[in-house]
């Protein structure tokens, strides 16, 4: 009996490369719309940035495009909150932006009016209220902004659940299979198989440019530290307002105070941003700066027990907006990547916008700011 050639594939409507949270959310959305879907990943589900990130579901206001996508996505998360399996650890702890000086207090006011105009609930905290809500903060801060609508999840399990839903609706999951060439009508795997599909989606996170070198994506490294369990040590995700100034400075390495209470009682200490270091090693100097920064806000952290440190890579684009939509050169090859430090949050909005474009549906928010075509030669500058 002669064996069938291995590079045969039945073909599907959609082939998604990457089973991180973005690829997983897209798979759930495509199958919900009735499209036959294949998901392929070189590793297990959620091994990339999705395993490394903090999992905060957050609304941001750096610019209108970022606000629109984070706000829309957060609404989608809230709608499914009741259905999420317990392992996702959904926690509506809210977040708290901390103002260290008068300038940052002005930023609190600015944010408050920005959000109020758009119907987002926020609360300006004076010194006493801040100290009452978060007694472990060092005394002397000027106040803060509470965002009660922000949540925290355990993202690997959220991605796992999206994949599970997709598979229940007939999607085919191929793990441990690396794509080495990606085209509009399919993908060539390292094992020689060719998977055929009407359209393909590059959701390979910070590896997206390995498959498409023309993509303007650079891995941006981040460090995190997790502690043992200290329930109640902090109650909100605490973030510094200098965050915007320091963390988003594109050129240099930076650290910012960002500490999150996990539902397990553990604390996740962040955050750092670095370009041009593509090893997964811990950089002791960055780690030191990051922890020192955190100790400046929460001196009591010093005594707590740290159990592990790790690093992850964000897929950064020149204008800090993701790439959602058809690629520039091939209308069958779609992109869903470039989510930098917000991909856990924006995975849901991304999946909706992408499927809207594929099916020609109207979107709830404008999709233009995220279209890959903005990087076309002579188009919008990055």
């Amino acid at each position, binding site marked *: 009996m002669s064996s069938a050639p291995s590079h045969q594939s039945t073909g599907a409507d959609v082939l998604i490369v990457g089973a991180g949270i973005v690829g997983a959310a897209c798979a759930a959305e495509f199958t919900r719309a009735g499209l036959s879907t294949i998901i392929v990943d070189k590793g297990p589900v959620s091994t990339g940035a999705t395993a490394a990130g903090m999992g905060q579901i957050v609304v941001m206001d750096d610019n209108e495009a970022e606000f629109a996508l984070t706000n829309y996505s957060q609404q989608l998360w809230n709608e499914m909150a009741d259905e999420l399996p317990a392992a996702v650890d959904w926690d509506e702890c809210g977040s708290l932006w901390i103002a260290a000086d008068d300038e940052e207090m002005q930023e609190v006011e600015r944010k408050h009016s920005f959000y109020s105009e758009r119907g987002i609930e926020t609360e300006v905290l004076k010194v006493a209220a801040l100290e009452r809500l978060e007694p472990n903060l060092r005394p002397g801060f000027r106040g803060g902004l509470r965002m009660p609508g922000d949540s925290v999840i355990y993202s*690997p399990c959220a991605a796992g659940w999206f994949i599970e839903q997709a598979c229940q609706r007939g999607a085919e999951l191929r793990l441990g299979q690396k794509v080495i060439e990606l085209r509009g009508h399919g993908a060539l795997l390292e094992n020689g198989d060719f998977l055929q599909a009407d359209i393909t989606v590059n959701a390979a996170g910070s590896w997206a440019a390995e498959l498409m070198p023309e993509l303007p994506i650079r891995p941006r490294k981040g460090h995190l530290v997790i502690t043992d369990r200290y329930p109640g040590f902090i109650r909100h995700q605490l973030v510094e307002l200098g965050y915007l100034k320091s963390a988003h400075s594109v050129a240099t390495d930076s650290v910012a105070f960002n500490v999150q209470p996990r539902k397990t009682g553990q604390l996740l200490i962040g955050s750092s941003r670095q370009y041009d270091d593509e090893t997964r090693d811990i950089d002791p100097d960055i780690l030191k700066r990051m922890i020192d920064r*955190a100790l400046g806000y929460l001196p009591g952290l010093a*005594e707590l*027990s740290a*159990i592990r440190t790790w690093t992850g890579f964000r897929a950064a684009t020149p204008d800090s907006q993701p790439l959602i939509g058809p690629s520039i050169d091939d209308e069958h090859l779609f992109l869903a990547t470039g989510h930098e430090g917000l991909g856990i949050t924006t995975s849901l909005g991304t999946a909706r916008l992408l499927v809207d474009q594929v099916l020609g549906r109207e979107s709830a928010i404008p999709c233009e700011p995220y279209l890959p075509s903005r990087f076309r030669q002579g188009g919008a500058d990055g």
Partner: protein
Amino acid sequence: MTERREFDVLIVGAGPGGLAAAYCAAEAGRRVGVVDDNSAAGGQIWRGEQDKPTQPAAAEWFERLRKIDLEFLPGTRIVGHPANGVLLADDDQKLLELKYDKLILATGARERFLPFPGWTLPGVTGAGGLQALVKSGMSIAGRRVVVAGSGPLLLAVAAYLRRAGAIVPLIAEQAPRGRVAKFAAGLLAHPAKLIEAARLKWELRGVKYLTDCWPVSAEGDDAESSVTLHRRGRTWQEPCDFLACGFGLVPNVELPMLLGCEIEQGHVRVDESQQTSVAGVYAVGEVTGIGGLEPALVEGQIAGLTAAGRDEAARRLHSPRRSARCFAEKLEHAFQLRDELRQIPDADTIVCRCEDVRFDQLTEHRSWRSAKLHTRCGMGPCQGRVCGAATELLFGWSMDSVRPPLYPVRVEHLAQATVTRETSSDVD
């Protein structure tokens, strides 16, 4: 705040392997430092032997060590490796930066636990673990202890507990009778082992030694407790106050992995001179493969001599080492864990105690990484030291990565864990 020390030869682990290495390197005039997380030297087998030796070999080595100069850092754990030629250590009070020219890893092994229904009950302990508790003062006199699992360690532990007044009705050895008998016959080639075996046999007279036998569950409350044992199709309950279990030993390869040393079938790969795949880093004893005292002592000497530049003297020990390792291979073959042990957990048996992960949560995963990410298995304070060795047998998984800190440390100590790069690059 961070203390700094510099050594020609730094040794991690003060068991027989590390001590032999320390002696040889110091004797050759090198500045030697020895780090161990216990409060006294001796490692697993020579615990407590420094002050009151009962074993001739221990007495001999501690006597030698008294005559030379070395710095011993007790109660100190290696937690990180921030740059070439530097290790970070933590003694709870402070962080130490230890610089070295040559490094010898003698980190030993730990017991393997296997999960079965009831294994998390208070009366169920590690075999070596119970021995250590008794050595440090716990009274066991008059208590009934069933010793179960695999390997010669069970006999050593049972004999020790008996000397301390425990009642040991039986030892349950999972290995088949044929293999154990062949192993025992093979001891004729290793006279020292034969003498030890004869001594153990005498000490354990009256204790049933059941091969092909293993625990399938433990049950009990404050008033009464027992273990259910399985042997050749028969299952029965054996009353006991303690069940001391050990399913062989697992090399402590976390630090070697952090250093980038190549790992082969669960232990560190070394060459003739005990050098690992990383230049200037040596490994000796259990961490290079389970073999007990003899290989640890010879390998320690080889590494200590080589690290001190005495290659000729080191070479003379190659042949004794080969014979000691040959015993280790027989040991491994004889006490290989049987497939049936994979069936002993129930669906709801806890496998990862730190994170309360059940057996049935793990079965759908194909790798340690996948299971860890989706169930949190191995994410707790022990970082998979216990459940990692269990899932290796149950599912054939191996741990993928080791991240600092190797042991939990205070957050502020992590922040001190930096070294200036130019001073560290000149040593490699």
